[in-house]
């Protein structure tokens, strides 16, 4: 039997996976093991599959994903820290037929940008918010975030988050799900193929809601890891996330078609 060469294998009929053309070839700035890359890719795959690459405007945050516009091959604006929903509000209202989304981390969305987040949700802006919650400030070097778990050590809570003096982890997703302006809320993860597939379905539903002009905002939280900030290997960080983050931030749909899911 003749030996198989690489050239024999890389044929279109053998293709099982291809990088979406809505991701650029630029090397991701994220740490190896970080969930951002997968979250970016899923978002871009969804936009490609929905045929909206020429009609989408994305808003990048400040944080690890500040450079999202380098990787997402669509028109993008980069907002000041926390202000992405304000950008998105105006873009969508002035271009109602376009698809508009923000991509934000926990510090951006749930600390400095809390007002913009809550009010965009409360006005029922017809945008999608992709919210990456890794419980830490990654880009600035691992400081405490609003979503940092109790007793969790960070560079600004070196002895662990003392909730009595530092406050409790903010479940902003549950908070905004109670607002009538919000159409769809789902909390997902991207640390395993199964989780990523579910997350992609949720992201797709969020964008589909906007395309279908369903009233209100669609909000996807992705609970993710930060192996660098958590000072763990990628695998350990994923295990730690399952054991510690998921109980506090349980995965699944929270609100569908404007109705809260009964637990």
């Amino acid at each position, binding site marked *: 039997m003749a030996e198989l060469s690489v050239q024999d294998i890389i044929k279109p009929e053998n293709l099982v996976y291809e990088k979406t053309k809505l991701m650029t070839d630029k090397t991701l700035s994220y740490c190896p093991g970080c969930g951002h890359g997968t979250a970016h890719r899923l978002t871009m795959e969804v936009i490609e599959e929905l045929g909206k690459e020429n009609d989408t405007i994305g808003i990048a945050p400040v944080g690890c994903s500040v450079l999202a516009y380098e990787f997402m091959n669509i028109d993008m604006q980069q*907002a000041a820290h926390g*202000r992405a929903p304000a950008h998105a509000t105006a873009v969508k209202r002035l271009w109602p037929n376009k698809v508009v989304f923000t991509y934000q981390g926990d510090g951006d969305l749930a600390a400095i940008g809390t007002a913009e987040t809550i009010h965009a949700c409360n006005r029922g802006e017809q945008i999608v918010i992709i919210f990456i919650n890794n419980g830490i400030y990654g880009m600035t070097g691992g400081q405490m975030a609003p979503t940092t778990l109790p007793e969790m050590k960070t560079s600004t809570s070196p002895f662990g988050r003392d909730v009595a003096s530092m406050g409790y982890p903010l479940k902003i997703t549950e908070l905004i799900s109670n607002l009538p302006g919000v159409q769809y809320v789902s909390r997902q993860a991207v640390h395993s193929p199964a989780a990523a597939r579910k997350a992609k379905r949720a992201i797709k539903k969020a964008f589909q809601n906007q395309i279908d002009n369903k009233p209100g905002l669609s909000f996807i939280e992705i609970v993710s890891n930060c192996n660098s900030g958590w000072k763990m290997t990628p695998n350990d960080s994923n295990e730690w996330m399952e054991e510690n983050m998921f109980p506090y931030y349980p995965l699944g749909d929270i609100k569908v078609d404007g109705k809260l899911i009964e637990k």
Partner: protein
Amino acid sequence: MGELKLMKGNEALAEAAIRAGADGYFGYPITPQSEVIEYLMAEKPFDRTGMVVLQAESEVASINMLYGGGGSGKKVMTSSSSPGISLMQEGISYLAGGEVPCVIANVVRGGPGLGDIQPAQSDYFQSVKGGGHGDYRLPCLAPASVQEMSDFVPVAFDLAFKYRTPVLIIADGLIGQMMEKVELFDQMPRLTDQEVIEKYPWATTGKPKGKERRILTSLDLDPHKLEKHNQHLHAKYNEIKENEVRYELIDTDDADYLFVAYGSSARICQKSVKLAREKGIKVGLLRIISLWPFASDVIKEFTAKGIKGFLSVEMSMGQMVEDIQLAVQGKTKVDHFGRVGGVIHSPEEVVEALEQKIIGG
């Protein structure tokens, strides 16, 4: 002749935004300019022209809405008053860095801090010397009448898009609140979406088929690239300095002395010129219209022609006076007179100040 109306300055500004073909207004109420958003909401501009009006949750949100809207090629505007404009400074810096066009109106009140709600001109430094962080400049137009509250809106939009920059209209509480006759310009058409896409290829309106995507950002982690960007901005600011200096000369032909003033102070100074001339003092008025770019060359020319002194008349403790001093370079007398905190000077006080500080000083 355009339609004549008796209006407040704030109302004229709002009506002018609709007539200038603005696509969106995003604002937050604050005295003494809340009539702007009230007028717009009552006027239903969406029915008239398709213009969107939104009350934001804060000035921080409204300025960033301008980034979203202006960044996607739409004519957008906000208005506020001093404390609200302070809140917007972060956003203004990002708008300047990202080269996003928009118009911001500041109907100035007394400060610092919460100050009061009376007219002031104490935001001059903030307007022309930065305000936000980084090396940037803002073209800044100062109306002195309700008529100009209307007329300057389309001028500001033109500047904003010509130079891809935020533009400031800086009025004061008096100009915003007082009622005067105004001749409104005729309705200008809003650009269609297709026109916006064709006219502004830099705008994020959705990546055009077969073309590069557009990115609007003020971030450049490579210091050499950021230096280049700053040099590019600087070249643009020099072009604005070259082309966009605006001022008005009143009774300056035979003048020995000049008042330099803008906005309400310039209106008061017109009376002061008359009163002084009745007393035999040959004084004229250099009314500054663009606070930046500043009419430095005009001041230099008057200095070279042998003017005996300049009195900067401002409702501040002396801010614009520093720019006059810079232009004069010590070659003749320069001083400042102003009432502050919402107190407005009388024409007589101004003449007295001229006599004491410049003529007798």
